């Protein structure tokens, strides 16, 4: 297998760390810790799930035929509602659950029969799982000591990783004496201190408050970018997934619904579940009347005809769900040329500063949302007004009928 040195990257400018000290220490850390780390050629998948199935009770499949390739250095998020099988996949990769069927490969090697402690995978657990009877420094030294490193080396690496998460002064504390955010940093540091090539994270930010969670998202993203480790991240929080990931695997019902980068996932959802799950979405239900040149003509349930991109529809006469993003709609007093336009009545207006959230009744659906930008020309909206709501045909996607 062809291997090459991994060149470390510094965080992208649009996501500068919230404080520059982090950036400085991160850079220090990369050069001292990971300068000699070898990574796989990105053309070979580093992690591969091949036809993986998992059942706990022998009656139902929690994971149904999972195929997933993850390249070295990638940040892949498994996103889905609870019970969708994403955590089970992570546990199979970590070695705490065995696949009922199929192969899991790591670096080209099947690892189905390798016990967890020989896989060399770092893991951050949901509630951190910091050992309560050991101090922070002892927690961080644990993976190094079981690898029989010399005391000097252990001390050196622990000090460096403590610097990385800016917790130098906390080495002698017990985990119970730390705040949630501090525990989270230590858990992250512990998963990284033995320099694994793959780090798994099981909803690591779930217990933090919103502000800290967002801050930690950026920090994890930057650590990933600077260390070049492969990260597999599990969450049910879509904004978390969109913020950090290179690619996102949307899980539902044991199946990967769509695997794509954040932009594609949001802009071009391939099925109704993904459209509904990622971001806010307006749905209109109807029946396909005609499909020509990738454009579907759909008759809505109130009789209106709408044109939409035929992404995931059956033939003529099949039911379909049309998806339009709220920020792609405009509200106009009269029909605009070139746009699909439907009658609508304004039900509710919520002023949110940068935009106005306008809930409308469109085609019999009471829950049609339009995000109206806060510009002076749009401020004539009143509740109960009969208006037109319009969008480009290319912004409306005809998808499978989910309900």
């Amino acid at each position, binding site marked *: 297998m062809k291997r090459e040195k991994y060149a470390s990257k510094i965080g992208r400018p649009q996501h500068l760390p919230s404080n520059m000290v982090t950036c400085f220490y991160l850079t220090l850390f990369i050069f001292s810790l990971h300068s000699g780390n070898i990574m796989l050629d990105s053309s070979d998948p580093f992690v591969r799930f091949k036809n993986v199935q998992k059942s706990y009770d022998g009656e139902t499949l929690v994971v149904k035929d999972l195929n997933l390739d993850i390249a070295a250095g990638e940040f892949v998020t498994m996103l889905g509602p609870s019970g969708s099988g994403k955590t089970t996949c992570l546990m199979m990769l970590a070695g705490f659950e065995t696949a009922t069927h199929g192969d899991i490969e790591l670096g080209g090697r099947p690892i189905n029969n390798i016990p967890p*402690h020989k896989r060399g995978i770092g893991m951050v657990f949901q509630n951190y799982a910091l050992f309560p009877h050991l101090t922070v420094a002892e927690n961080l030294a644990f993976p190094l000591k079981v690898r029989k490193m010399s005391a000097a080396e252990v001390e050196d690496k622990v000090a460096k990783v403590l610097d990385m998460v800016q917790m130098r002064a906390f080495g002698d504390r017990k985990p119970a004496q730390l705040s949630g955010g501090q525990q989270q940093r230590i858990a992250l540091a512990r998963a990284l201190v033995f320099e694994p090539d793959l780090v798994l994270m099981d909803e690591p930010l779930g217990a933090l408050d919103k502000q800290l969670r967002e801050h930690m998202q950026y920090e994890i993203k930057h650590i990933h970018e600077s260390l070049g480790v492969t990260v597999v991240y599990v969450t049910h929080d879509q904004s978390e997934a969109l913020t950090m990931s290179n690619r996102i695997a949307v899980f539902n019902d044991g199946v990967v619904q769509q695997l794509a980068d954040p932009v594609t996932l949001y802009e071009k959802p391939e099925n109704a579940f993904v459209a509904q799950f990622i971001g806010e979405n307006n749905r209109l239900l109807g029946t396909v009347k005609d499909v020509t040149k990738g454009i579907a003509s759909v008759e809505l349930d109130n009789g209106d005809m709408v044109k939409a991109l035929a992404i995931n529809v059956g033939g003529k006469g099949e039911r379909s769900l049309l998806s339009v993003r709220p920020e792609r709609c405009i509200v106009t007093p009269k029909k605009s040329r070139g746009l699909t336009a439907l009658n609508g009545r304004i039900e509710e207006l919520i002023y949110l500063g940068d935009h106005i959230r306008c809930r409308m009744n469109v085609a019999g659906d009471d829950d049609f949302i339009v995000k109206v930008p806060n510009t002076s020309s749009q401020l004539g909206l009143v509740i109960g007004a009969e208006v037109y709501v319009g969008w480009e045909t290319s912004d409306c996607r005809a998808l499978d009928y989910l309900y």
Partner: protein
Amino acid sequence: MPNVVEPITAADGTPLKKKLARALFRSKLRAAGLVLPLFAFIIATFVVPIFALMLQGVHNDTFYTYMPRTAEVLNDWDGESLPGELVFATLAAELAKGKKERTVGKVATRVNRQYSGARSTFTKTARKAVKMEAPFKEAILKADKKWKRVEFWQAIKLTSETWTPAFYGAALDYELKLNEGFERKVEKERIHVKLFWRTLVISAVVMGCCLLLGYPVAYLLATLPLKTSNLLMILVLLPFWTSLLVRTTAWIAILQSQGVVNDILVWVGVTSDDSRFSLIYNMTGTVVAMTHILLPFMVLPLYSVMKTIPPAYVRAARSLGATPTLAFLRIYLPQTVPGIGAGGLLVFILAIGYYITPALVGGQSGVLISNMIAFHMKSSLNWSLAAALGGILLAGVLLLYWAYDRVVGIDNVKLG
């Protein structure tokens, strides 16, 4: 102007502290009222009897009660040679009185504990004392030849003293001698210290066995799915619902030489019919039966501690590169120490004072100090010695408790 801090006052002008104390007094009174019945019950049935019994260990006034004047005149005796006529005259008078009032037997028994054979001397002399005339010394010396021995008189003087360390000495196999102090008993009479040691060793062995057997069970209970673990829990608790006697006699049926275990061993051919193992009425029987009976006291504290340890810790250790053994030793085991401490302490303290089981299955080599205490309480009626033995046992338990607190810390004990 000096900066004087005015006491904060309530709305009606009284100082706030006073007001608060008055308000709290009511609730404190009510709280005290609620626990008062139990407090009184414990004082009456536990604290007072224990102190009364402990007192018996150093205080015995049998002799003084029935022969007070003899005791007084003996006080002035030097203990070197035979006492003078005054002592003999007083003794004769009080022996005669004791004979009439039928109290001489009690005195005789008391002296007999200090000097064996004294009982017959006392009763015989008392019979004759009724008709004795002066000089009493001659008459008494004629009545029994033991009165000629200085050691006999020394023993009497020792028993006439109401406060005495003699019983604690006896409990540790030492004999008290007048004018000489404590002297270690001859080898074949040293039984108590041996019994104390045996009690400690058996308790430690039982505790160890309980830990070895109970730890895996508690682990299973804590980790299996609820449905299975509930069933297991019933099996663990089942012995609690059966009478102690039934359980102990069941072990007799199983372990005796014609019992189930030996029958199977003979049938399999491990041993021949005429050389069956003696598994009961010795130390083995005591250890086996006590381990069985005390096992739940180890399992339950362990279980309650293990229940609170999420599986994520061991998983984290494994993902960090620890082998299953290392993850257990370094991560899981240290977190169960409070349970081990609680279970161990509970089992050990229960075992150290265990009575019924060793009495039934212990035979000669399997009895514990508690059986000796019971013997002195019920058969020999030497309550003072029983109290001394009990006092030493109590002191030993408290000492262990203290040592445990120093080493592990009593805050580290979790009973559930």
